[in-house]
């Protein structure tokens, strides 16, 4: 089995590496977009009375639809419906972003609503405007509270990104499956691929937790579970 490993995995390391970098690219931009969309949806839901129902509908849809279904829908239906996305990579990024934006919007909301009323009142009492309060008092604290959920969504994005191979985005999973289909020997390649994902996700969670704990330590707060 070892020379199988050499033949299939080590020899193809550069292809798998290329796949991994595509995965990283897709995950990075999806997560970024998800944060932006999620924040917007949350703020609209909380503070803009007229289109509040649209925001709620958006959030519910993003959370209730499986990522695979969203992926196919964005990839096959949107180009005809909206004219974009023009590439599969765009479709992958948008679909992944949609999925996470729903959860992030809800997390933002519970963070904002969970902030003690007194924090805002102290800011109002010294005469700060609504925007100043949001920017300087509410958002920094909300981000700190939300950190574990943000990290969790990062891992969800990475795990869901494995599906973009289905619409022919050349990510790690795609390259791995290509090798398997070429050689009909799935054990080494698939196991290695699985382990790469597991290790990558584990490392990112550890790193993020370390950073978050460092911040909490700075402010004198206890470390989170």
């Amino acid at each position: 089995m070892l020379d199988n490993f050499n033949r299939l995995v080590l020899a193809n390391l550069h292809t798998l590496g290329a796949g991994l970098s595509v995965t990283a690219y897709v995950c990075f931009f999806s997560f970024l977009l998800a944060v932006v969309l999620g924040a917007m949806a949350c703020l609209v839901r909380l503070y803009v009375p007229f289109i509040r129902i649209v925001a709620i509908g958006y959030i519910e849809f993003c959370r209730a639809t499986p990522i695979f279904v969203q992926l196919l829908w964005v990839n096959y239906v949107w180009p005809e419906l909206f004219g974009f996305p023009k590439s599969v990579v765009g479709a992958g990024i948008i679909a992944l972003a949609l999925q996470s934006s729903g959860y992030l919007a809800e997390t933002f909301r519970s963070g904002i609503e969970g902030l003690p009323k007194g924090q805002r009142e102290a800011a109002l009492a010294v005469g700060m405007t609504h925007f100043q309060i949001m920017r300087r008092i509410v958002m920094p604290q909300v981000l700190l509270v939300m950190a574990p959920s943000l990290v969790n969504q990062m891992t969800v994005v990475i795990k869901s990104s494995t599906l973009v191979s289905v619409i022919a985005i050349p990510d790690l999973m795609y390259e791995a499956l290509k090798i398997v289909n070429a050689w009909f020997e799935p054990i080494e390649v698939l196991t290695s691929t699985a382990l790469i994902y597991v290790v990558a996700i584990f490392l990112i969670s550890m790193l993020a937790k370390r950073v978050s704990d460092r911040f909490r330590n700075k402010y004198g707060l206890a470390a989170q579970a």
Partner: protein
Amino acid sequence: MWDSLRQSLDLTLFWEYRTILLRGLLQNIYIFFGGALLATALAFAIGAARLSKRGTVRVLSTGYAELFRNTPEYVFLIWVYYVLPIIFSRLLATKFNFSPYAAAVLALGVSYSGFLSETVRAGILAIPRTHIDAAMALGMSRWMIMRRIIAPQAIRRMLPEALNQYVSLFKATSLVSLIAVEDLMYQVSMITVHEMRPLPLYTGAALLYCGIIIAAAQCIQHLSDRWRQRGWA
């Protein structure tokens, strides 16, 4: 664009094929129940093991949970379907094959047992030590304590979060079309190839899942609120 919008919302095509599509959905439901059962059984075992007094048991079970929480479901599904049979064949020295259904149930069940074991563990830990102390002071045996004091409370506390996990599991069953299970999405792609009209079908599938999940989530929310009112969870 409006033409396409009308077309994509023209769900009559969806309606036309409703029998086949619903039969596909049924596959999702079967796999969901199978997976949920397996995940729950494993979760209780692993969850309890994580609280064991024996260090090795604790480490192994925590490792199990961490492993499956960090593994992408799709990758694991493919692995179970393609790699596991080969490993079993070599170990048992016979030809071994998984049906796609079995692979799906196994993969999803094991995958989500990781998350559920964390829920189980949290539910058990949430029971105040004092309750157990009181039971021990009254002379109850460990088994009796588990059965009459811990389990009822733990299960009630776990239920809301566990139900959320089950909803995620149901969403994950949409993946099984990728190992050739004839579920809803499988039928949708088949019909698309046949009819060449992806818009209403994919939109319809999305709305169908959306509807089911939102309805389920509302029920869960309603039940959770009622339980919380009664002081259960």
